[in-house]
Structure formats: C-alpha cells, structure tokens
C-alpha cells in the first residue's frame, strides 16, 4: 500500500519538480519571482490540446507546445522585464509586471477557448493499459509522463553543468556585473534562460493536462502556489533543490491524501513553507542569503 | 561623553576589534585613523548597536549603551553619517532634516531648518530640493545636517571628506570645528590627513583591530609605529 502511495508521489513530484525548476531558474539568475510562469504552464497545455485536436500525435504536440512556451518566455522578458532592468527597477516591480503579463495571457486564453474544461480525446489516454509491477500499478501514460519529466530535468542539468550556455547562465546568476565585464552577452543569456525556464514550465503544463486529461483556465492556480513552497523548501535559486523539493512535496501530498489528511494538506504544505521562511529561509540547498536591511 | 572601555568585536572567529578603549569628549574632535580594514567602521557599527560586543562596554554620559537596539542608542543621543551616503534620496531636503529630528518631540520650526542648513554649510540649498539630486558635496553635508537635527550629544562622521576636493575639505574643517564648539562630542573617521590635522584635537590610530597609537595629530604623524602601519599597507597617506 505504501509503495503504491510513494509511487504516486513520485509521479506527482516529477511534474511539481519540472514546474519548480523553471521558477527557481529565473529567480536564481535574475532575482525575479515570475508570476507569469503558471500562465505559461496553462497556455502550453491549451496549445498541446489544440494541436492534438488538429491531429498531431501527442509526443509531437508536447514538444511543440513546450517550444511555444519557451518563446512566450522570451517575449515575457522582452516586454515585462528587460525595460525594467534597463532602469534598475529592483526586484519587486518585475514581480508585479509579471502579474500583468499573466493577466493578459489568461485573458487571451479565455477569449480563445472559453471557460469549459477541455479533454484530450486522442492518443488513447482513457484506455491506457495498466502495468502491474509487484505491489504497484501504473499506466503507460503515467510512465511516459514521468520519464518525460525526468529526461527534461536531466537535460537541464547537463546544459547547466556541461555546456557553454550553462556556464554563462551560472555566471550571470552569480554576478551579473562581473559576467558582463567578462564578455558574457547578458541579454542573450537571459533570453536563453527564459526560453529554458518557460519551456520546462510549459512542458509541465502539457504533462499535467495529460495526467488528468483535463485542460482548464485555472489549472495553473494550485501549482503556482505549491511551486512557491517547493522553491522555498529546496532553496531559492537552486535547481537541485527545486527537483528534490518537488519530489518531497509530491510524496507529502500523496501520503497526506492516503492517510486521511487530504482536506488539510495544503495547510500543512504552506505551514511548513512558512515555518521554513521564518527559521531557515535558505531552504535545503539555497545559496541566496535572506535579504535583510 | 562617549566612552569605549576594552571593547572587543568578533566576526566569524576573527577579532575585528580587540581591547579598544577611547573617550570622545564634548567640545572636542577625536580623530580615528588607520589603514583600510583596521576596524574603524566596525567600531562605529559597534557603538551604534549594529555589531554585538564580544567584550568590554560602551557608555554614554555614564550609562551603558552596549546591547541596546540601534534605534534606542540613536535616541540616547548618538548621531552618525555613513561612509557610503545613506540619505533618504527620494525625499526632499526638508524631510531628511525632519528625519534627523524624528526622535525629538514636536516638529522643527522654519528657523531651526534654516539654522541646520547653515551649520551644515548648505545654507544655499532649497528645502524642497530632492536629496538624491543634490551635488555630491552637498549630499555629504546634508547628512551632517541630518545628524545635527537630532540635537545629539555625540556625532560620528564616517569619512565625510571622501570625494571632496581640497577647497571643500577646508570648508569642512570649519564645519566640524563649529560642531564641536557647540558642545557636541565629535568622532571623525578619516583617511585625509590634512583634514585630520586641521580638525582634530586628538587622534587614535587603529590597526588590525587594536589601538596602536594615540596623541595629537602631530605626535601621531611622527610615531614610527604608525608610519610603518601605513607604509606597510601600501598607503602613503601620512605625507
């Protein structure tokens, strides 16, 4: 029984982690809490839905939607963040402008798709074969989702650790001024960061839509806030922390549901987050010290 | 009178200050000099409650102030300026002066505002001017004005001449001496030895967190220990 719960937690956690990674990447590089991340998450899910309806095979729709999300991320930076960087507006103003973009994206989605729930009717989602492995059961769809998330996160890890772009991103995250002095093209590196972060967030959106076979306008709401808990737990700016935190959250949530505390699980999650902020604001892996006057 | 008695401050296992004792008397200007990293700003921070003492005591007019929160120490009558100017830049000159007088009952009158500008040497500046838009030298003086607005017993000036040219520095000497003459105890942290020689009645020299010399500016300038401390750190500032 507990093995099944942990497995469910693993699947849930993988998607949480994927979403949180994008959140924390932007914060780590730019000190901005991007509240449009969840809107992009939702937009990608709708995009994948539209492509699926148009006949695209699901894996292709997934990839295209993720790329689409990445592009929206670049636009988001150009419109809402770059002008503020140019005038040194601090870190709270971009947070608010990200809300503006989120509102706009939400309004566009609402205009195009209306308020009804959408379902992926193709790809055999409802009739996916269940696999039994000893005491646990899961569907091929769940497995595919899990692996997609893992592959993407591993890909990110490789990019950050081993590629030139990754080195540049880490340099900018460490010290923007020094990186610029050393010749790093700031704007291009930041654009690449947003492409990756939003692309991953969008991928998480498509996977979530597939997981529950449901795409709605407000699907981003819960995960946007839970994502905050994940990045606080894992440490703001730490990608490893976001991954570990995502899995921990997935486990905690499924166990809470399994053991009867489901109604209060959000309170537990945010209670822990609040306690962490008060006591150990750097989280499990965070390098950013709490900013105090 | 401000008295530091055997003060020690530790930062992460290192003694930033060790057994420092000094007294700042009303009506006199005490200079605090030393190479970079000697602990001068640490001393000011410890006095204003921003750094905890590992040992020793700090008293103002006989009453212990170490361990008090910074705002209480300020209210006890210690005002300061900052090495990197910390004005309320988006607010106007008037608000900055009013800020200085915050802890005093009531509000400043028009005459008091004018007097403060005068004492700070910026009588020509408009009260409605934005503090952050003032020329650099005027900003430094506005900070001094803000400190004076508190009607303090002690004023600590942290490198007030930084970035000033020689003629501005000379004017600053008069301002500082006038502050002392009004009965305030002045602690002046400075690198500019011309200013120190002209403005200070006595000087304390710090190096590596310890007092290595004291005396009049002339005595200290001749002290071979002090000369070596400065030459050793590469700064030929005693010339």
């Amino acid at each position, binding site marked *: 029984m507990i093995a099944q719960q942990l497995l469910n937690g693993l699947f849930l956690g993988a998607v949480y982690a994927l979403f949180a990674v994008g959140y924390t990447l932007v914060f780590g590089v730019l000190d901005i809490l991007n509240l449009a991340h969840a809107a992009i998450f939702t937009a990608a899910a709708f995009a994948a839905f539209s492509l699926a309806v148009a006949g695209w095979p699901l894996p292709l729709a997934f990839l295209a939607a993720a790329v689409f999300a990445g592009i929206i991320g670049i636009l988001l930076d150009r419109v809402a963040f770059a002008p503020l960087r140019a005038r040194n507006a601090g870190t709270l103003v971009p947070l*608010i402008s990200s809300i*503006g973009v989120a509102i706009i994206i939400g309004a566009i989605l609402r205009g195009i798709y209306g308020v009804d729930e959408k379902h992926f009717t193709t790809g055999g989602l409802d009739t996916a074969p269940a696999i039994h492995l000893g005491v646990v059961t899961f569907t091929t769809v769940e497995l595919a989702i899990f692996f997609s998330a893992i592959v993407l996160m591993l890909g990110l890890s490789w990019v950050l650790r081993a590629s030139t772009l990754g080195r540049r991103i880490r340099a900018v995250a460490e010290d923007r001024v020094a990186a610029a002095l050393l010749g790093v093209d700031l704007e291009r590196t930041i654009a690449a960061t947003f492409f990756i972060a939003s692309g991953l967030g969008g991928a998480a959106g498509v996977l979530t839509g597939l997981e529950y076979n449901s795409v709605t306008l407000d699907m981003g709401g819960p995960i946007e806030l839970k994502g905050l*808990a994940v990045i606080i737990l894992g440490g703001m700016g730490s990608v490893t922390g976001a991954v570990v935190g995502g899995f921990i959250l997935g486990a905690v949530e499924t166990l809470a549901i399994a053991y009867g505390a489901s109604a209060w699980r959000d*309170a537990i999650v945010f209670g822990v987050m609040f306690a962490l902020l008060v006591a150990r*604001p750097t989280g499990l892996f965070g390098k950013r010290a709490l*900013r*105090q006057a | 009178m401000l008295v530091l008695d055997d003060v020690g401050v530790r930062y992460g296992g290192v003694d930033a200050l060790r057994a420092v004792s000094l007294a700042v008397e009303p009506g006199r200007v005490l200079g605090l000099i030393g190479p970079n990293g000697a602990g001068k700003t640490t001393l000011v921070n410890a006095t204003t409650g921003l750094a905890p003492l590992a040992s020793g005591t700090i008293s103002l007019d006989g009453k212990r102030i170490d361990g008090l929160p910074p705002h209480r120490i*300020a209210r006890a009558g210690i005002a300061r300026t900052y090495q990197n100017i*910390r004005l309320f830049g988006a607010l106007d000159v008037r608000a900055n002066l009013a800020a200085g007088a915050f802890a005093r009952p009531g509000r400043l009158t028009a005459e008091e505002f004018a007097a403060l500008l005068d004492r700070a040497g910026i009588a020509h500046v408009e009260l409605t001017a934005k503090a952050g838009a003032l020329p650099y030298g005027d900003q430094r003086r506005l900070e001094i004005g803000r400190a004076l607005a508190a009607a303090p017993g002690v004023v600590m000036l942290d490198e007030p001449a930084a970035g000033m040219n020689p003629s501005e520095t000379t004017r600053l000497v008069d301002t500082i001496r006038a502050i002392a003459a009004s009965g305030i105890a002045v602690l002046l942290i400075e690198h500019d030895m011309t200013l120190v020689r002209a403005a200070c009645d006595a000087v304390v020299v710090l190096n590596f967190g310890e007092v290595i010399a004291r005396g009049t500016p002339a005595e200290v300038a001749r002290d071979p220990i002090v000369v070596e401390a400065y030459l050793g750190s590469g700064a030929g500032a005693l010339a």
Partner: protein
Amino acid sequence: MTTLADFYAKHSRLIDQIGVNAILALSLSVSLQAGQLALAQAAFAGIAAYVSAILAMNAHWPLLATIVVAVLVSSVVAAVLAYPVRRLRGVFLAIATIGFGEIVRVFANNLKITGGAEGLSGIPNDATTPVIYASLAVVALALFFLSRTKFALAVALVREDEYAARGVGIDVGAIRTLSLALGGAIAGLAGALYAHASFFLTPSDFGFPRMEQILVWCVVGGVTSPLGAVLGAALLSILPEAIRFLADYREISNGIILLAVILFAPGGLSSLWRRGVVRVRS
C-alpha cells in the same frame, strides 16, 4: 432624476463592489507605503468577513457590532503575523504572506462554522451603499490626516532606507507591525462590509487571485496617496464591465493597463498629476 435611480438600480452591485474594493486597495497601500509587499490583506478581509457574518447570522448581532469585532480580530491577527515575519523582506515576505493566506483559506474551507467549501449564505444584507461609501470616506479621511503625522514620516523613512531610519531613532520593527496592523484593520472593515453586501461568502472569495487583484489596483492607481488606491480600484473594477463588447477577452485591459503603468508611469496613475519629488509632510 429617474435616470439616476435607474442607473443605480441596474448597477448597484457594481457600485457597492467598487466601494469595498477601494477600501481593500487602501488597506494594501498602507503596507506598500512602508515598503512591505505584505500580501495578506485578502486573508485579513476574509477572516473579518467570516467573523462578521457568523456573528450576524448565529448571534444576531447588529451590523456595527459585528464590524467592530471583525476589525478588531483582523487587526490582532495582522499584528501577530508581523512577529514571525519581522526579519523577512522583499520576495520572501511576499511568499510568506501568500502562504499565510493559503492557510487561512484552507481553514475556511474545512471548518464547520464557516460552512466549509460551500461557505455561508443568507448573511443579512444590511451593508447598503451609503454605509459602504461612508466607511470608505472615513478610512480615506483618516489616512489623509495620518499622512500629516510623524508616523507617516517614519513609514516613509522605513520604506526608503531601513538602516538609516534606525540611525535616526526609528523602531523599524514597531513601524512594520503597526503598518501591518493598520492594513489589517482596514482590510477587516472591507471584509465585513463585503460579507454584508453579498448574498454568500465562500473561501475562494479572498484567496490569492483576489490578493493579486488588490495589488494590481494599488499599483495602477499609485500608493503615495489614498486617492491613488481608490482610483485604481474604481477604474479597474469598472473597466471590464464597460468593455463588455470584448466578451471573454475583456480582462486583457487590466493586464495591459498594469504593464503600461509600470513601464511608463511607475508611480501609478495618481502620480501623473503630481510629478516631482515625493513630498512627505514634516
């Protein structure tokens, strides 16, 4: 005269909403003036709304009494919240207060006395338009007079430079607590009025989406004067209604206005005719 009465009859709900929204915006503006992005006002309003509704429905208290108690409760909650978050700044404070809001929402969702997820219905509908706008006027006037006191100066100094504020003798912790408590009180008033002006009250009425809305009103209107917050709330509450022809796209206007304000008029719309130095009464 009949056209005015007709207009009111058709739009009374919106008019009431604008009044309540304006008070909510004022409650956040107090925290923003202190430089704190404390996003708990919606939760404070929600707590007060439930307290006021429960007292009215279960104990049959008159409106004024329920409002007084509700405001007291929300102020105390705010003052207590100020303690654990006293060292948090910027984004961290924002996240902590968002978390607090979510915890409150879960409690409202699960307690029997708050009606659970269905919430409460049948709240006495005695917060009439005059009552709401009289309250708005009282709050706005109170804040206006407060802006001429030393407290307002202290708030501005804490916002500009906390460090230097301590250096002039300001107890920064106390200022932060007081401004959060004041915001809590005003939000409480808005919440109680909301409860008595609506037919039902549900936990999702005061969740994070509502908090984001309040923030948008303040930013668009500008927070350096009470007028700004009221302006922002009024404009952005009316606009989606006024551009109904855009149908499902109509919310896009608020997002575009928010971005435009941030990019071109960062002090908010109310700053457009008060260009220049931030004047603080001394």
